[in-house]
């Protein structure tokens, strides 16, 4: 691999890691500083080291991030094999071994003295997409509310009428993943079942959306502060 190609592949690998989300926080692991190291060897072996805020971070979330990172990095052109590992975690051995063996969550914890897992994690991921889709309505609608748009208008507004933004694009993605309306004709404000929010329901719906966003973002702040504490100081 030439030097310029090598650099290009490394950049691609980093970009691929940027598509991997912490499912609970709905943020890329690269923004969260969970990627401790990322290198690609001359023969295309990508080696990625991940880290998390605590020794006891939930193994189901942890597993999803390591497995998603493995899939994303493996799919990059020029990567011949991927070695993705999680450090300093109570289930590092199970997760790292299971991801390398493509064993799934249940397979990874088979026979583990940490306890066995009995189901894969699709439902968990869906549950957090639902939360992200609700929080997204606050991100997208709040600037409109601040600009004086009232419940009558908000209740009939469709996504096509909302100014484009990164938050809007993100909310469309989450809705698409859930099979909820997300094109230009889709309502801006949506119940969890995909139905439109009525004018009378707008104030409480927005309250719920904001609470959901505060919830997710507060979890993120906890994780960021704990990660900083854990890796800035010298562990005793």
């Amino acid at each position: 691999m030439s030097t310029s190609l090598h650099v290009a592949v490394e950049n691609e690998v980093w970009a691929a890691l940027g598509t991997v989300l912490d499912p609970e926080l709905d943020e890329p692991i690269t923004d969260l500083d969970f990627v401790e190291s990322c290198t690609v060897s001359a023969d295309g072996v990508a080696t990625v080291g991940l880290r998390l805020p605590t020794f006891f971070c939930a193994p189901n979330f942890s597993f999803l991030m390591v497995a998603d990172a493995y899939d994303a990095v493996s799919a990059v052109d020029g990567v011949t094999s991927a070695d993705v590992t999680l450090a300093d975690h109570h289930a590092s051995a199970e997760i790292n071994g299971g991801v390398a063996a493509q064993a799934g969550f249940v397979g990874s914890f088979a026979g583990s003295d940490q306890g066995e897992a009995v189901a894969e994690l699709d439902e968990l991921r869906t549950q957090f997409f639902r939360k992200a889709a609700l929080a997204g309505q606050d991100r997208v609608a709040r600037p409109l509310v601040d600009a004086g748009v009232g419940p009558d208008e908000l209740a009939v507004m469709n996504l096509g009428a909302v100014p484009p933004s990164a938050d809007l694009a993100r909310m469309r993605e989450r809705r698409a993943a859930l099979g909820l309306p997300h094109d230009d004709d889709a309502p801006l404000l949506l119940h969890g079942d995909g139905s439109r929010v009525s004018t009378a329901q707008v104030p409480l719906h927005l309250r719920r959306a904001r609470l959901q966003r505060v919830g997710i973002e507060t979890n993120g702040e906890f994780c960021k502060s704990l990660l900083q504490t854990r890796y800035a100081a010298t562990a005793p």
Partner: protein
Amino acid sequence: MYEKDGEKYFIVDSHIHFWDASRENWKSGREEFAKGWIDCFYGYHQLGPPETHWDYEKYLKVTPEDFERDIFIEGHVDHAIFQSTYLLDWYTNGFNTIDQNSALLEKWGDRLIVNGRFDPREGDAGLKQLEVDARRFNLKGVKVYTAEWYEGSRGWRLDSPEAYRFLEKCQELGIKNIHAHKGPTIWPLDKDAFSVSDIDAAATDHPGLNFIVEHAAIPRIEDFCFMAVQEPNVYAGLSVVIGGLMHARPKFFAKVMGELMFWVGEDKMTFGGDYNIWVPKWQVEGFVDWQMPDDDAFTDYAKLTTATKKKILGLNAARLYDIPVPAEMQLETTAGETGAPGHELVDDTAGAQA
């Protein structure tokens, strides 16, 4: 008691520990977990102001003298409530069992309350043990961990028939306060055994009991608030909320407080300082000085009054635990009263006024 600007605050710290995480207590072969657990707590410890940080060795185990100074002498605390955490798998003598508190109880019995525990999966034997504990410690409250594993079971629900037997026994024994730990899930659970969905029916069906959800169910505060707004006997325990956010993430502390004030209300929130993750002193003093910021992002949120702070810091918990409050510090609060489920929403006092 804490006094500031001529106002006197009666302080009830409703969530404290007195743990032994010393190396000698790390169970052989389980050292990695024993260390991992206390390291995790030490991470939280460092979210407090730098001048309050302790050396790691001191953090592992404090002495009764430390406790006395940190809680009663410097900490402004009038009454404190122990919540036990056993963790016998990792700590030879347990992390913080009821017995470890006994020396402190001998000396400070009139100001310390011990909460018990139950696990419905222990069946008749568990019911009997609860009776014994209730008589021995004059229990007014219990702490429950619904996500704990037990003989092949991966957690339990407060709204199950088995749990109802224990809740009814609690009522019979005069145990009024059910503290439910609803924190991050640790084990490889495919479902969330700390979900708050079981509180809803349990609270509706037991209007004579109070359900205090510790840590305001963070990391699922939204699920908690959506549920608590409909249940008059559900409370937000502020353990970790003040300690973990007020100093380290003030903007988010403001948002969380604003949401809790709206959905849960100032009569349904109780202070917990989480000793010895943190000492109560800076939390009490900081909270009395704290106010919702004036910037635009916070204009929808209620300001806190002196009365709000008095209720949260002690008067609400005093009502739940029948702790006598000197008349000069007493205020009216609806804490401990029974109301009809959902009345807050119906009366437009929450949720609908956005």
